[in-house]
C-alpha cells in the first residue's frame, strides 16, 4: 500500500477505499494470526492441526464467492440492458482472484489431509469439486488470454463464465453421489466441534479473507480499467494513422499531428469500448 500512496491516484490503482480495505484486511489478518495461533486452544484429537480451520474454510468459501461473482458479472454482461465493460472487468478480475483462492484452498486442504489421513490427496467430494472448479476457471482464464478483439473476447468469456456456473451444481451432485457411495464426507468428519473463542476466530478469518478479496478486486478491476483506457487512446491514434494512410505523400501528417478532434475520437473509442466518459476525458486531454 505504500506503493499506491507514492504514485499519483490518477494513474495508480489505489484510492481511499482500497487503503481503508487494505488496512482493515491487515488488522483482521493480524487478529486471526494472534487469536488463531496464541489464544485459541488446540483440539483434543487433532492438536495444533485444528488451527487450519482459521484459514481453509474461509479461503474455500471466498473461492466459491469469487466464481459466483464471475458468473453473475458474466450474466450481467450478456444481458443487453446491463451490458457494460464494468461487468467484463469484474468477471475477469474475480476469476483471477478466485483461481488464487482456489489453489490456496487445495493447498491448505492437502496440508491438513497429509497428517490427518496420511495422504496428500483424498477423493473427498468437496475437495474433488474444488479441484474441478479450479480446472474450469484455469480454462476460463486461458480463454481470456487468447487475444483478438476486446468485444469478441468479452463475449466469449462471458458465455464461458455462465456455462461454468451452470455445470457446478451438476458437478456437486456427481461428486457427492460418487463419494458417498464408498465413504462418508471425510472432511466433515474431520471438522472438530468448535466453540467459544474458536468460533469467533473463525468468523474473523472470514472477515479477513473477505477484505483481502475485496482489496484485490478493487486493484485488479482498476488495473483492467487503466488497460482498456490505454487501448482506447490507442484507438484514437490508430484511427488517425489509418486515415493518414490515404495521403501517403504528406510526411508531416503522422499520427501525432493528425488533428482528430477530441469529441469525435471519443465517440468512436467510446462506442467501441462502451466508455464514452472515460474516453472523452482522455481524448480531451490529448487534443
Amino acid at each position, binding site marked *: 500500500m505504500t506503493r499506491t500512496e507514492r504514485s499519483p491516484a490518477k494513474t495508480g490503482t489505489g484510492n481511499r477505499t482500497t487503503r481503508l480495505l487494505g488496512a482493515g484486511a491487515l488488522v483482521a489478518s493480524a487478529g486471526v494470526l494472534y487469536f488463531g495461533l496464541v489464544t485459541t486452544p488446540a483440539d483434543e484429537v487433532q492438536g495444533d492441526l485444528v488451527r487450519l480451520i482459521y484459514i481453509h474454510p474461509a479461503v474455500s468459501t471466498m473461492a466459491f464467492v469469487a466464481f459466483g461473482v464471475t458468473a453473475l458479472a458474466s450474466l450481467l454482461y450478456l444481458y443487453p440492458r446491463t451490458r457494460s465493460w464494468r461487468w467484463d472487468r469484474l468477471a475477469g478480475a474475480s476469476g483471477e482472484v478466485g483461481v488464487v483462492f482456489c489453489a490456496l484452498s487445495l493447498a491448505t486442504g492437502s496440508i491438513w489431509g497429509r497428517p490427518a489421513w496420511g495422504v496428500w490427496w483424498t477423493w473427498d467430494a468437496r475437495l474433488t469439486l474444488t479441484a474441478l472448479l479450479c480446472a474450469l476457471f484455469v480454462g476460463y482464464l486461458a480463454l481470456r488470454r487468447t487475444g483478438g478483439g476486446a468485444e469478441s473476447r468479452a463475449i466469449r468469456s462471458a458465455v464461458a463464465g455462465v456455462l461454468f456456473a451452470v455445470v457446478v451444481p451438476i458437478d456437486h451432485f456427481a461428486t457427492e453421489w460418487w463419494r458417498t457411495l464408498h465413504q462418508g464426507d471425510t472432511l466433515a468428519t474431520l471438522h472438530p466441534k468448535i466453540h467459544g473463542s474458536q468460533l469467533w476466530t473463525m468468523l474473523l478469518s472470514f472477515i479477513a479473507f473477505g477484505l483481502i478479496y475485496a482489496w484485490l478486486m478493487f486493484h485488479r478491476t482498476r488495473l483492467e480499467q487503466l488497460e482498456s483506457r490505454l487501448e482506447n487512446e490507442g484507438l484514437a491514434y490508430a484511427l488517425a494513422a489509418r*486515415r493518414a494512410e490515404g495521403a501517403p505523400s504528406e510526411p508531416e501528417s503522422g499520427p501525432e499531428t493528425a488533428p482528430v478532434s477530441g469529441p469525435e475520437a471519443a465517440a468512436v473509442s467510446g462506442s*467501441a469500448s462502451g466508455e464514452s466518459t472515460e474516453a472523452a476525458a482522455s481524448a480531451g486531454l490529448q487534443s
Partner: protein
Amino acid sequence: MAPAVRLRSAVALLGGFPVLAGADLEVQMGEVVLLQGANGAGKTSLLRTCAGLLAVVSGSAVVLGCDLTLDRRAVRRRVGLLGHATALYDDLTVEDNVRFAVRAAGAPSAAVEPALIRLGLGGRLRSVGASRLSAGQRRRTALAVLVARQPELWLLDEPHAGLDAEHRDLLDDLIRDAVAGGAAVLMASHELDRASALAHRTVTMAGGQVLPARPAPRSGLPTPATDPPGAAAHQPAGISPPHDGFEVLEVAHVA
C-alpha cells in the same frame, strides 16, 4: 427508391484495428460501383461490412433497408458475397456444395441446375470434389451459388481473379444480367480496364475511407489514384460532409 447501400462515417474494427475509419458510400439499386484503391485501403472490409460480417461500431450503415448497427443478420440472406475465399467444403462435390449453399440461403433447389450449366459446371465437373478444383473452377462454383440465389446486392471481391478469358466475359454477362434484374453490384477490383467498363461509377478508397469522388465517365481510362484539386466540391449531394475536417485538410494539401 431506397439506396442499396448507405454508409455514413462507418467505422469497423478488426482485432482492434480500424479497417474502416469513417467510410461514406451510397450505392443505388441497379447500379454497378467499382471500388479501387491500394492494397490494405479497406476495400475487402467495406464489402464485408456491407455483408453484415463486420460490426459497425460508429457511424451508420443501412444495407437493403436493414440497419446494420441494430441487426447484422437479417441482411445476409439478401446479399451475395464472393470473397477471396470461396467458402466451399473441400469434401463435398461441386453440385453438393452449390445445392447446400442454395438451400441454406432459402433459395429454390430448382435454380441449382440452370446455374451449374450457366457456369459450365454441368458436365463432369459437377461430381468432382471441391478439393480437386483449380482456383478458377472454385470461383465458378461460388459464382454458381450467387446465380442460383439471385441476391439483391452482389458484393464481389476481385471477381475476375483466377478466371480465364472465356469466363471473365461470362462474369461480365452475369453482372449485367443481375443489374438488369434490378440488383446492385459493389465490386472491388484491380483490373480497372475490364471493371470500369462495367461500372457506372468508380470510387477510390484509401486509409479506410472512401475518398470524395467525381462521377466516372464510362471510359476504359483508369481513374487517377489521387483526386485532383477541388475534388471536395464535386461531392455528391447524398454524402455527408467530412465529419472532422480531416479529409478537407488532406485535399487542401494535395491542392
